[in-house]
């Protein structure tokens, strides 16, 4: 509970900070930022998915473990692309069966959230 509260508070603070940053930038930069952020990211939801479906194999910081690759150095776009492939049922590696079983439960929003979370939360 405490951790969730801390998370919530941090996200609110960060959200304000992000908005403040955006207001301080010039119009061109603001347009550029807007174009690269296409949706609202729900980090709490992403963390739940990560802890339930990703952490046990890829590690608590997505650092990779055993035969499961490191994810924290990938881009959100890369992770989202792979998750969508797995969700379609296509096999693209030796652990595909595991990935397909997890990915097929994910919505587009889930994929967007978890992709950003994994790629950024452990920097």
């Amino acid at each position, binding site marked *: 509970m405490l951790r969730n509260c801390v998370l919530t508070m941090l996200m609110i603070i960060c959200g304000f900070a992000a908005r403040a940053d955006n207001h301080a930038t010039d119009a061109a930069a603001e347009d550029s930022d807007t174009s690269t952020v296409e949706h609202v990211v729900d*980090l709490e939801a992403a963390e739940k998915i990560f802890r339930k479906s990703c952490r*046990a194999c890829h590690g*608590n910081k997505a650092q990779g473990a055993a035969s499961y690759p490191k994810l924290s150095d990938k881009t959100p776009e890369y992770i989202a692309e792979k998750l969508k492939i797995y969700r379609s049922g296509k096999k693209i590696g030796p652990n595909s*069966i595991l990935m397909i079983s997890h990915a097929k439960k994910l919505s587009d929003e889930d994929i967007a959230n978890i992709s950003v979370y994994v790629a950024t*939360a452990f920097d």
Partner: protein
Amino acid sequence: MSHVTSFSALRMGAALLAGTALLSSPAFAQNGMNTTSLQHEVVLEGLDNPWDMAFLADGTMLFTEKCSGLSVRLPDGTVNALYGVGETEGYASNGSDLFCEGQAGMMGVAFDPDFDSNRRIYVYSTSNMSDPHTNRLMRFTLSEDFTGVADRTDIVDDVPYKMAASNHPFGGPGAHNGGRVRFDANGHLFLTTGDTHNGQVPQSPTMMGSKVLRIDTDGNANAENSPPDGFDARTYTYGHRNVQGIAFHPETGAAITAEHGPWHSDEITILQNGGNAGWDPRPNMAGRGDCPDDYCGYSPNQEDGMNRYERAAFMSMTDFDTYPDAMPPIWNNNGWSQGTSSAAFLEGDAWGDWDGAMVVGIMGIGFGGTPIGQRIDVIQFNDDNTDVEDVTEMTLPMESGRFRSVVMGPDGSLYTSIDEGTIYKLTPGG
């Protein structure tokens, strides 16, 4: 619900969270309902898939990293990189034939019981010296100053390796190598191996996968091994799936394995000399038809979840119908497969009621509705030491991980490595 709309804000939040985590997780004593009070200490971190450790009485610790190599940590904390996998940089010397792939790489390690006089150590690793490639048990001499190894002798060079991918879960090359190397109290050397996703290997009399080998330090069979006629004399037990845990009961001396199940039934088994563990994943037998790539190990319905008991009925971890005399498991993890890996026995009064109990490290999987289950279980035996009397999940004083190895240290602490890259010391008392 909390939202952010900027990647830079995410990074800031993550950094702040990381700081919070660091501040809130110093080593501390824990008073759980089900455990001796434990403290934890990070011995090493940032490692590359630490796989196994071995200790001398003064605390000197050998450790392996699956894709990097063998190192030694001295009692003062100095770490010397001894023998690298392939061309890995930073090691005093390298085995150019050694490599890692999937689950394979550098795995188990042990000190010779007479190390003080012969300086010998033993390491198990995957090698491309042969074609098809194999897993090898190597013997080295460790230098007096603990800075290098020499005199490599491959005392076992014929443990099968999975060369090509197959249509199975975890189906890449390098699957199921076993990998634990341990001496019993009598100085016998044990090596555990795996089935390499090959249906023929477990019951094969000559292929040395899916076996527990009992040998001497030159790799010769123990004269008292009693496998069935026609078996390789190094065979102590056979018919295993993928044994990564072996420990010896402190009172009976019995060799006891902890073993991964397929999509069901992790097992602990008290070994019997010459015994069959009853794993036989061949197609077209035991009521089964064809299976993907001639290996039924994950069948039926290998790509999706299903009732674990239905799975067990179709493809038993220990097939008593086919092998009525198979060694019976004394624990099956309530029918789950959660990645049971290594095993050790706790020693010392400080462990209280757990003194003499077995611990097993469980890595966690979480497929098809199975609880992930990352933990260390404490297995207490009955008075006859012939069966499990009680199982307790150790309440850990740190975050759980993929517990690849559990090893008793000479200081009475339990050391455990997790695939994520950390070796912890767990100490009873507060």
